Structures are given as C-alpha cells and as structure tokens.
C-alpha cells in the first residue's frame, strides 16, 4: 500500500486551490486601473488623526467613569467626605496582596489623577458622598 506523505497532501491542497479559479477567470486589472485615476492615496497618519480626539473626548471619560463605578462598588469610603476634597479621600480595598492592617489604602494621588484626567471631580465627590452615607 502506498503511503501518502505530508508533502503530497500539501501539494494536493495547493493544486486543488488553484483549480478552483480555473473555470472562473477574473480579470479586474483594467477595471482597477481605470478607477485608480480618480483615487487619492490617503496618508496613513492623516487617516488615524481624526478619530483620536473623539476617542479622547468620549471613550476615555466613559472608561474612567466605569473604573470609578468599579471603585465605588468595591471600596469603602471610611471618612465623611462631605467637607473633603478628592485629594483627602482614602479608599479601602480587599485585594489581599495590598492588605495592610486589614485595610488597603489607595493613594489619594491615584484617585486625584483619575479625577483630574477625567475632569469629573464633582462626580467623584458625589460618589464618595453617597458611599459615605
């Protein structure tokens, strides 16, 4: 019995692939060439520039808000923040690797950074107030 080897199989896969196009000849060369005259090549850098500001304006605050919501749901605000600014906020987490005296203190500057980047200090204060109630 003749044993097929891998090369023969790969060869068959290739030759059958070429056979597919045997009865259908597509020749788009002229059609493409004809259309190229009216097409302007787009600079890759230009094409990616436009979506970025929209991304910054919409997506980053949305992601940030989601992160803050996650913070709010997982962390406890132990202090009354009614008269506190975000920089004074102390957040407590339950991540075991960061546990110190059974509490984890998320650095206020991290919170500040998020709030600053998102320019939603007031919203954050609001969340803090709700959770400190």
């Amino acid at each position: 019995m003749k044993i097929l080897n891998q090369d023969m199989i790969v060869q068959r896969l290739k030759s059958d692939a070429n056979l597919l196009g045997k009865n259908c000849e597509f020749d788009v060369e002229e059609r493409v060439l004809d259309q190229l005259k009216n097409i302007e090549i787009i600079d890759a850098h230009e094409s990616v520039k436009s979506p970025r500001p929209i991304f910054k304006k919409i997506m980053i605050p949305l992601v940030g808000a989601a992160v803050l919501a996650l913070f709010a749901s997982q962390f406890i605000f132990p202090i009354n923040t009614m008269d506190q600014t975000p920089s004074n906020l102390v957040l407590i987490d339950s991540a075991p690797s960061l546990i110190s005296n059974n509490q984890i203190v998320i650095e206020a500057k991290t919170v500040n950074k998020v709030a600053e980047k998102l320019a939603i200090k007031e919203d954050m204060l609001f969340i803090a107030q709700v959770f400190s109630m």
Partner: protein
Amino acid sequence: MIQNELQVIKSAQLGNPTCFTQLVVAYQKQLSCYLLTKCFNSTDVEDVLQETFINAYKYIRSYNPQWKFSTWLYTIANRLVKKYNELYFQQNNLDTIERTSEIENKQPNKKNIWYHIRCMLSPNAFDIMWFYYVEEFNTKETARILHCSQSRVKMSLFRSKRKLAKNKNIKMLFQELVELELIL
C-alpha cells in the same frame, strides 16, 4: 511573484498607478481563488477583488513592509468579504443554515478537496487552513489577518487536521486507505 516587490510598492506609494497594476496582476489570481471559497456568488467575488485592490491603493502608505504584501492584502479582503456577505444575507433574508459559498454551488467542485474542507470546517478554521497551506503564511501572519492569537491558529490547525484525517470523503479523494491521522 514580482521581482523587487518592495520597490514596486514604494513607487505605488508615491502614486504610480502602473506600478500598482503590477501588484494587481501578481495577486489577483490567488486572491480570487480564496474569494471563491468565501463569497456567495461570482459577482461578489469580482466586486470584493476589485474593492480590495482599490482600498489597497488608497491606503498603500499605511502598508508596513514588516509584513508580506499578501498578508496586508488578505486582511483587507477578509474585512470586505464580511461586509459583502452580511449585505448578501440582509438582501436575501438568509439564515445561517442556507449559507453556501460559491465553491459549494458548483458541481465540479465536489471533487475538489477544498469543497469538502469548506463543508466540514467552520469559516474561521477553513481560513486558517487556507492561509497556512495555500498561501504559505506562517501562524503569526495568519493570526494577524484573522485578528486572533497565534496559539488559536496553532490549535485550530491541529484540530482541523485531526478532523480531516477522519473524514471518509477526504480519504477517498486521496484514493488511499491510509491513516491520514498519522501523516497529516
């Protein structure tokens, strides 16, 4: 294959349509064979083929020579295929059960190994096999075209080969009663 392909691409990037036409001539046949397995009629094949090249010309400055030109071309084609197929389903109110590609519509193709592979594997697994064996892309390039991980490509190849090796039609096509499982 074009001699000095990179040079031709560079000229095309500067807006030389004649150079770009050389790329069209070089790649249209192999691309059309792939599209025949993906599109649902020959008109779509032709349209996708044309639009792939037009998009390639339009965005040729974003081509990264780190990758093969064909990898980039197939990435564009693959996106367009999805777009055209969705449009086709919407226009014809088809559900997934009725999805048969051009390759499956043609009777003579039943003797073609790719006809059986197309019937057996999922579209994604089929693409992976095609890119790996026909286009000779490595797993990294295949993963890039299909926007998936390299390990997924490797796993899919392994599973597909096992599946094909057990298929009677595939064995009959080779007209051999060998255990393909051992050699694929």
